[in-house]
């Protein structure tokens, strides 16, 4: 775990800069906004934490926008349709998500950074990297593909074990086809498939933790407990040298 005052060169890249070749036609230097990403597998409680964190930030006078995986107006209908009709292979899957991310990056994230907002990202490119990794897509190719993404200033990873996660997902209403990795055809039993798939995902996330400077939080703790941790990290970051330039409303 990285300590909270560390500016964290994620993936060897300065936060707020492009990971790779970027968008050569959009210069993002010196944009005042900040990106805070919350990662973690399905059902770990990301959205709840983001809602609470947003509330806290807004009370403190920061402008906040949220962006969530597959929520771009351009791609959402296509992704829903493709998932429902089951015609995707791993590459088209990966590319549809990349397109969704690119649309949100250019239409939501970059304008918000320019205007000095804090962007709370419910999942970021690591979700794509983890899912593609499990499905055997070339990892170097994936990292180049997402070279147009901007390195967040903070990445939190809510870690949980597959068994605790299974119980939580079941309590929340049950296991769904995609989050159980049923497309990977590892078997007909959804519980076994879920556990196998989520274990593989957790392994992918663990491997990325160091590479991308994740701040790891224990996702088995209570909602309040996790939120306290998040606020402590974010608070220290915003009050430190890196966050100081951020305008407050």
């Amino acid at each position, binding site marked *: 775990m990285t300590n909270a005052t560390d500016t964290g060169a994620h993936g060897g890249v300065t936060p707020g800069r492009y990971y790779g070749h970027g968008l050569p036609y959009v210069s993002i230097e010196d944009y005042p906004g900040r990106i805070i990403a919350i990662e973690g597998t399905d059902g770990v409680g990301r959205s709840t934490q983001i809602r609470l964190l947003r509330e806290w930030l807004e009370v403190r006078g920061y402008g906040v926008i949220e962006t969530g995986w597959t929520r771009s107006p351009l791609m959402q209908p296509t992704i829903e349709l*493709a998932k429902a009709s089951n015609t995707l292979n791993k590459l088209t899957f990966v590319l549809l998500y990349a397109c969704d991310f690119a649309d949100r990056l*250019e239409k939501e994230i970059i304008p918000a950074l320019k205007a000095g907002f804090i962007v709370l990202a419910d999942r970021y490119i690591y979700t794509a990297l983890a899912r593609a990794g499990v499905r055997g897509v070339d990892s170097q190719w994936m990292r180049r593909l997402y070279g147009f993404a901007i390195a967040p200033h903070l990445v939190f990873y809510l870690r949980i074990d597959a068994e605790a996660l299974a119980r939580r997902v079941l309590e929340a209403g049950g296991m769904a086809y995609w989050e159980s990795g049923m497309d990977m055809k590892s078997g007909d039993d959804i519980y076994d498939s879920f556990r196998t798939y989520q274990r593989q995902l957790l392994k992918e996330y663990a491997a990325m933790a160091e590479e991308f400077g994740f701040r790891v939080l224990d996702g088995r703790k209570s909602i309040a407990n996790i939120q306290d941790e998040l606020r402590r990290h974010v608070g220290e970051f915003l009050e430190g040298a890196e966050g100081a330039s951020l305008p407050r409303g």
Partner: protein
Amino acid sequence: MLDTLAAPHAYPGRLFVVEGIDGSGKTTQLALLAKWLVASGYRVFMTEWNSSALVKAATKTGKKKNALTPMTFSLLHATDFADRQLYKIIPPLKAGMIVLADRYAYTAFARDVARGVDREWVRDLYGFAVRPDLAVYFRVPIDVSLDRLLARRVKLKFYEAGLDMNWSTNATESFRLFQSKVLDEYDAIVAEHGLRVIDATRSITEQQRQLRELVSGALEANA
């Protein structure tokens, strides 16, 4: 790293692609080539750039609202390509057929870079593409292609004319500016990826004779 575009494929079929700007005549040439191949007893499968059902809705939404950025434009086309490669290119190649592709990854290399996408990034992106057995580029000056398009009373399309770049509000002028950048990119691609060049200002019959020669050569070399 994933880079099948750099190495010959091992499928029993053959993949021939045509490239060129709008109005170069490549589609006409490909149709004539198909006639000849079918008449010669080959089984032929045709596939066209940006034609998969998967991305149709998104492309339509994006184009209607002029909402595509150079990056989403590029990624949507790559998604289309990946989908067609899965359903329309690899299966016929495995079945030993001849696949004729109207535009290929090189179109993305030329257009996306003309729009400002990183040159190296888009080449990495298409690293999953099957390497064609033959890629032919129909080279034509912009004035000739414009004359052909306008003579057919084709209304220049928004993205094809590069109107999304806001270089000119006049469609013809924008087409000229945008496609001249595309032509420059194609020239670099020809050298880089070994595309064979046909002078597209010559007569249709002349070009077709040349194309058939190239294809014959490729069929024999690979037999």
